[in-house]
């Protein structure tokens, strides 16, 4: 994701931080999980990078890989956008779902990839999130969902809005079955995703400074004359407002998830 922002003439050994713009050694940067050593900026990850740094090595196996979006509304330019996103990212839609283990504990997981049409939720993303939660409920194992989305996918119209209901209904299934569900908000977690399955997880973690909000910041500011806080719609603002449990730095995310998962399944074993 960061490739295009490489410092010029430096044969790929260096990258430029999107936060502080400083030049960093690529190797050090990658070893630091794509977090800038200078300013702490957490760069966005692809789903694969996320899976690699989170789960036991080689434990992730994808499910639902055959799901593809359908342009049922024949919405302007949707087909083209889908095709170019597939070509660019190598995945079929904005969410990759499957199973993995975390310190040996089997989990059902879904990882959103912002580089696919802004992580937007259409029928496919909604279906994958729903199946992820259903697998957790059926097997009574934890669900871990990494969110990264601008919101519902406008190009599928009302079908996208209904994914909010569908995915949230699946959360009810998890609760009924006693399967713990943890959501991790990464940059950004917005609108239709935030206002559905993301916000009703048993535990919500967020990466530092991730954008977390209902409406675009401009819309929110226009709607009121109230002063907008500096960290408005950032993870830290959501934390202060009581909307999430914890802001967790990337290097501590895996161990935090592991601790949570082991405690939350403890009661049912």
């Amino acid at each position, binding site marked *: 994701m960061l490739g295009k922002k490489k410092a010029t003439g430096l044969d790929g050994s260096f990258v430029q931080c999107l936060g502080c713009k400083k030049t960093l050694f690529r190797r050090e940067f990658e070893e630091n999980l794509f977090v800038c050593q200078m300013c702490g900026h957490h760069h966005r990850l692809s789903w694969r990078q996320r899976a690699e740094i989170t789960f036991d090595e080689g434990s992730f196996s994808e499910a*639902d890989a*055959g*799901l*593809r*979006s*359908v342009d*049922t*509304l024949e*919405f*302007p330019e949707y087909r083209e956008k889908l095709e170019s996103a597939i070509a660019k990212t190598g995945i079929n839609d904005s969410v990759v779902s499957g199973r993995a283990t975390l310190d040996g504990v089997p989990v059902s997981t879904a990882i959103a990839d912002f580089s696919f049409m802004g992580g937007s939720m*259409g*029928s*496919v993303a909604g*279906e994958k999130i*729903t199946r992820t939660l259903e697998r957790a409920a059926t097997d009574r194992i934890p669900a871990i969902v990494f969110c990264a989305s601008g919101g*519902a*996918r*406008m190009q*599928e*119209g*009302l*079908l*996208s*809005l*209904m*994914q*909010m*209901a*569908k995915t*949230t*209904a*699946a*959360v*009810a*299934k998890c609760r009924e079955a006693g399967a713990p569900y943890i959501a991790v908000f990464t940059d950004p977690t917005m*609108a*239709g995703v*935030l*206002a*559905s*399955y*993301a*916000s*009703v997880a048993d535990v919500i973690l967020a990466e530092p400074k991730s954008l977390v*909000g*209902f*409406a675009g910041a401009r*819309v*929110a500011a226009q*709607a*009121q004359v*109230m*002063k*907008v*806080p500096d960290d*408005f719609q950032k993870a830290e*603002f959501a934390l202060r*407002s*009581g*909307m999430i449990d914890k802001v967790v730095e990337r290097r501590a995310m895996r161990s935090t998830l592991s601790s949570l998962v082991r405690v939350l399944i403890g009661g049912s074993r």
Partner: protein
Amino acid sequence: MAKSWKEWEKPLLEIDEALEKAREIAKKCSPTEQVAAEERIAYFEQRRDNIIRVMYSRLGPWEKVLVARAETRPYALDYITTLFTDFVELGGDRRFGDDHAIVGGTAMFQGKPVIVVGQQKGRNIQDRQYRNFAMAKPEGYRKAIRLFEMADRFRLPIVSFVDTPAADPGVESESRGISEAIAASILKMFELNVPSVAVIIGEGGSGGAIGIAAANKVLMLEHSVYSVIPPEGCAAILWRQPAEGAKAAAALQLTAQSALDRGLIDEVLPEPFGGAHRDWETVTKTVGNAIEASLHTLDSLSPADLREQRYAKFRAMGRVAEAAPSA
């Protein structure tokens, strides 16, 4: 392209004015002029009906958006006060405050106790501000959740009226968790052990609407709209100009018929000649009958069946292609 309902209905407004004048003349004129005056009235009436017929027989998606927003359309409380008896409005989320964009309470529907909830618009400037243009804040959805829980506790069916441009997007709403409030309300609706019927009576505006619309039966008035994003917002994103709202409305296919064709709602309720705003009595009767029929079909379902019916219905929503796994 008309930008508002008033602008779009201008031809009708003009003929209504002419008709009003003709009626006044008829009242004052001498007996000898009476016949001519009445003929004139009949002529205008016929002309008006012809215009209505032409305009309303081919409402496009954008015209539906305008009609759904009509300021003279019946609002939630208009249905509630006509179709229900013993309505006691209840208020407050017991957390922060009372939201006036969502109303609700206990009531009798055809002699049976129910909980009713609805998004309420205002009809004049003060009222509109008081109702925050039917854009609910977190406390509105939390009030709804409170009422849903009460319905569950006392085994009361739920009827909700959906009519909102969107949930309130302001800084206050954000800091009190508007997203969580909407999500929690949707979740609560799926956990209910009692029957629920949602009626989209005007604007079904994205997350704000689905927050109280995850029901066993979802009914939608013929000229109401239901959309993932306001057409103006969609146009601003797609073509960088909100004025292309009509084009966006067509692309989004936000009509009741389109929602029905895709299995996203259960029923389209026909509106009277010239739209709900021309004949409150008829549309109210239609809505009442449809709620009654819906509640009747849900009557025989057990709590578990109700939850399952709701889950299965929304679970099936979406269009995907699925290839066999390659490995």
